[in-house]
């Protein structure tokens, strides 16, 4: 399975990473480059500059891909209606504030049923699942999460008519959380 195709259309993902390349290079966090980039570097011999010019995708864990697939099934998630707010740079991966929200009247006929918060690089992909009700009044939840390393965080919401909304945010992590080395 192509990891990028289920997670992110190639163009937007690349745009995001390219936008952030100076920041990433400046912060010296290029250590997260994955095998594809290492291969490219070896082949071209151009070293760091080549990697910076064309950053690799952050390949999600198999666990993330399974979890995402279970939520989405054969549906097509819609971009843009769900908002996921996270810091672009998190010094401390143990405490990363997140906020997820969507415009919704939260009525019986039209509400957000649940919101999944997923990590693409943590040892456990499923970070939290929030179940909302018409008593919620507003489709918004926030808290604090752990990020093991630099990665894309993904939120998927399921509406009362089973539409799927998705939002993504890349977070550069200084010191990783999750209690793994």
């Amino acid at each position, binding site marked *: 399975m192509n990891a990028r195709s289920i997670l992110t259309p190639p163009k937007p993902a690349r745009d995001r990473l390219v936008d952030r390349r100076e920041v990433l290079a400046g912060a010296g966090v290029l250590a997260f480059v994955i095998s594809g980039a290492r291969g490219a570097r070896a082949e071209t011999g151009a070293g760091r500059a080549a990697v910076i010019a064309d950053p690799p995708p952050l390949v999600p864990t198999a666990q993330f891909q399974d979890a995402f697939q279970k939520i989405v099934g054969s549906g097509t998630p819609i971009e843009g209606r769900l908002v996921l707010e996270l810091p672009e740079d998190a010094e401390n991966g143990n405490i990363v504030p997140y906020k997820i929200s969507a415009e919704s009247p939260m009525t019986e006929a039209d509400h957000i049923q649940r919101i999944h918060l997923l*990590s693409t690089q943590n040892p456990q992909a499923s970070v*939290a699942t929030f179940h909302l009700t018409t008593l919620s009044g507003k489709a918004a939840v*926030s808290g604090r999460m*752990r990020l093991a390393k630099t990665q894309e965080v993904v939120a998927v919401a399921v509406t009362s008519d089973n539409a799927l909304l998705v939002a993504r945010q890349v977070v550069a992590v200084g010191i990783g959380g*999750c209690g793994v080395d």
Partner: protein
Amino acid sequence: MPATKPRVRFPEQAAAGEIIEIKALITHVMETGNRKDAEGQPIPRNIIHTFTAHYDGDLIFTAELGSGISANPFLSFFFRVPGPGELWVSWKDDEGGETVERYPLNVV
């Protein structure tokens, strides 16, 4: 280690129909299960796996939490106040502990 010091914040008074923010914080280690002790033995997972909020018996909000939630879990969510009543919040952890707090709401 059990959960301690639950703290829940919401407006001191609310009108019927108003949407208010509820913030809930509790002290808990949220041990991930990924770590090892000094002897190299895995430290068993102990996290708050479920948080729920009810109002007079009706469910407002549930959060199923994983080990990717930070220690001392904080949650903020919203609630459309239907009228006078009592807010019940509950945290359940892997060691079988449950902390339940009840708060009457001052509805004007």
